[in-house]
């Protein structure tokens, strides 16, 4: 693949001029920090540190059955639990040779639509929009842009409503089972959310138009992109792993092209290609690699922005990609409900067997890979879970290195804002918290700091 070398960007750098440190990155999910070392105006090290404590989920699922794994891995994230459930359930079904009912498959896409709607609405409106409108938080923004925040909350509510209708509750849904669902909804169970989706389609179309008018910081830094691509659908639950460099793998074959590394200073493993290169996942990659699979309404909206190429080269434009996907999810959810016929049985029986259960799906933040080694009784003996944010760490650092020279001459607060804004463009889901910012700039020659 073409692109930046893997590993944290570090150069042999005696006599460091400046060191930028962002102690706590704000408006991201979880706890991380940023440090930049600068020499003679050039970035010699950019490091995103993830210091949130290890959570050991890969060990927690050992000894568990597929259905237990599906419920456990949902707890990894309160924003994207469905992505974890979907990846696990498809992995086990692929190993066990389970053919699910087409209606069940449609329900799973519908559930994924719900997650995309609530996750993307949260990020676009409450986490990322304040950067573009010049506010430190969604609360401060709401004073002057009440309608914007209300629109975001309305969309988020629709996504949560959809998840609750299918999964029993809006956070950590409980209905997904290997072979189907524990219970399939009646068509009438979806009437409420169907009505809300009409409004959501209009709201998300307005979102695309709105964010396309926001001017991002300048950045021209194309990176290798990786996403699923399906023969007929916009990628959620399945498809082949493809890249801008010609990669084409089955969804369970992630390890044929990628591997994880532990780097000092981060409790999240970094992922690289086998030859050590970084790559970018998420809305940017999906739009670049699968825009022709978007719902017609979303495809038309993307075209109208005129920003498809800009999305590819400037990560700040990911907010446009995310808004287009928001519209896609709303429109597809509406279509699925309109065509929904409850399955004759919500769940099919299966017989476990030993082997490797591996699959990838597209979480809102990018490709999510699971791999489970399973014994004859269907119990997991080893697990590997590769979240999109850990895969994106290298791309974030490469983008920071490319972007930082443009902000080094700015006032301290503005430089801080711009660097954090770039990280937020990735919508990193470090885990479950948001903190305030502590930035220090250290000039190691003069000893002065701010």
């Amino acid at each position, binding site marked *: 693949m073409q692109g930046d070398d893997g590993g944290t960007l570090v150069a042999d750098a005696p006599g460091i001029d400046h060191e930028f440190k962002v102690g706590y990155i704000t408006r991201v999910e979880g706890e991380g920090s940023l440090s930049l070392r600068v020499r003679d105006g050039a970035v010699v090290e950019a490091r995103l540190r993830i210091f949130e404590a290890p*959570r050991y*989920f890969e060990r*927690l699922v050992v000894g568990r059955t597929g259905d237990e794994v599906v419920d456990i891995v949902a*707890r990894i994230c*309160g*924003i994207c639990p469905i992505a974890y459930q979907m990846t696990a359930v498809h992995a086990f079904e692929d190993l066990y040779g389970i053919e699910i009912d087409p209606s069940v498959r449609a329900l799973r896409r519908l559930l994924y639509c719900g997650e995309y709607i609530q996750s993307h609405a*949260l990020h676009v409106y*409450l986490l990322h929009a304040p950067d573009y409108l010049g506010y430190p*938080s*969604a*609360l401060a923004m*709401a*004073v002057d842009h*009440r309608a914007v*925040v*209300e629109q975001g*909350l309305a969309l*988020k*509510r629709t996504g*949560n409503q959809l998840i609750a209708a299918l999964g029993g*509750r*809006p*956070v*950590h849904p409980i209905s997904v089972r290997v072979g189907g669902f524990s219970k399939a909804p009646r068509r009438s169970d979806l009437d409420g959310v169907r009505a809300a989706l009409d409004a959501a389609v209009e709201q998300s179309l307005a979102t695309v138009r709105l964010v396309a008018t926001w001017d991002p910081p300048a950045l021209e830094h194309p990176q290798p992109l990786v996403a699923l691509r399906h023969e007929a659908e916009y990628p959620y639950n399945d498809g082949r792993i493809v890249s801008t460099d010609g990669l084409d793998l089955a969804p369970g074959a992630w390890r044929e092209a990628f591997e994880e590394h532990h780097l000092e200073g981060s409790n999240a493993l970094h992922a690289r290609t086998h030859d050590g290169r970084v790559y970018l996942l998420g809305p940017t990659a999906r739009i670049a690699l699968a825009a022709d699979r978007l719902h017609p309404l979303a495809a038309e909206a993307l075209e109208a922005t005129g920003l498809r190429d800009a999305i590819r080269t400037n990560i700040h434009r990911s907010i446009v990609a995310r808004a287009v996907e928001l519209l896609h999810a709303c429109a597809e959810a509406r279509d699925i409900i309109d065509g929904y016929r409850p399955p004759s049985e919500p769940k099919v029986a299966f017989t476990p067997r030993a082997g490797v259960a591996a699959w990838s799906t597209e979480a809102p933040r990018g490709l999510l890979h699971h791999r489970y080694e399973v014994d004859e009784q269907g119990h997991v003996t080893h697990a590997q879970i590769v979240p999109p944010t850990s895969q994106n760490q290298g791309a974030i650092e490469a983008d920071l290195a490319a972007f930082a020279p443009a902000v080094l001459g700015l006032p301290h607060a503005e430089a801080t804002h711009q660097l954090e804004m770039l990280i937020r463009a990735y919508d990193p889901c470090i885990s*479950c918290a*948001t903190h305030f910012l502590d930035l220090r700039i250290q000039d190691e020659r003069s000893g002065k700091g701010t």
Partner: protein
Amino acid sequence: MTHLAPPSVRLLICGNADRGDDGAALSAIATLLPALPSALLERLEVRRCGHLRVEDLLDVRPGQVAVVVDAAVGIPPGHVVTLPIWQIVADPNAPAPRSSHELPIDQVLGLARELRPGGLPDGTFVGIGGRRFGYGRPLSRSVRLNMTNFQDAIAAELSLLTHISSEGPAASG
């Protein structure tokens, strides 16, 4: 035909049962609610919300109050706190609900204050300090030993807000 008055209290139960003391509110409510008299239960709209979201507060009706029950940050493990919701916004050092995931709690409450007609709903936070929140952990000893105090505080607040005694024949069994 009997017309029931709309519930006057929205009871927001926060937390996850499988994350140690994060499940304190769920544990307290599981045994408290069945013991409450039906007259009081009829005044409650019970919503299990996982983590507290802006949306849970925005549609609290005029005249309705909110009671947020959750593990608390800012107090020692096992301690029980009851304080008005507005105080959490007004005082950054006040104890606060722990189960705010998407946004910090001051943002959640602040957005509700800004966007809800009538501002932040009247209401109360009843919390208990937790010790451990890891996935798969049981309630800590600090929380278990003080669970009765926590339940008493919740019942007292519900009784105060509904003007109905929490004592009396239980609604079930």
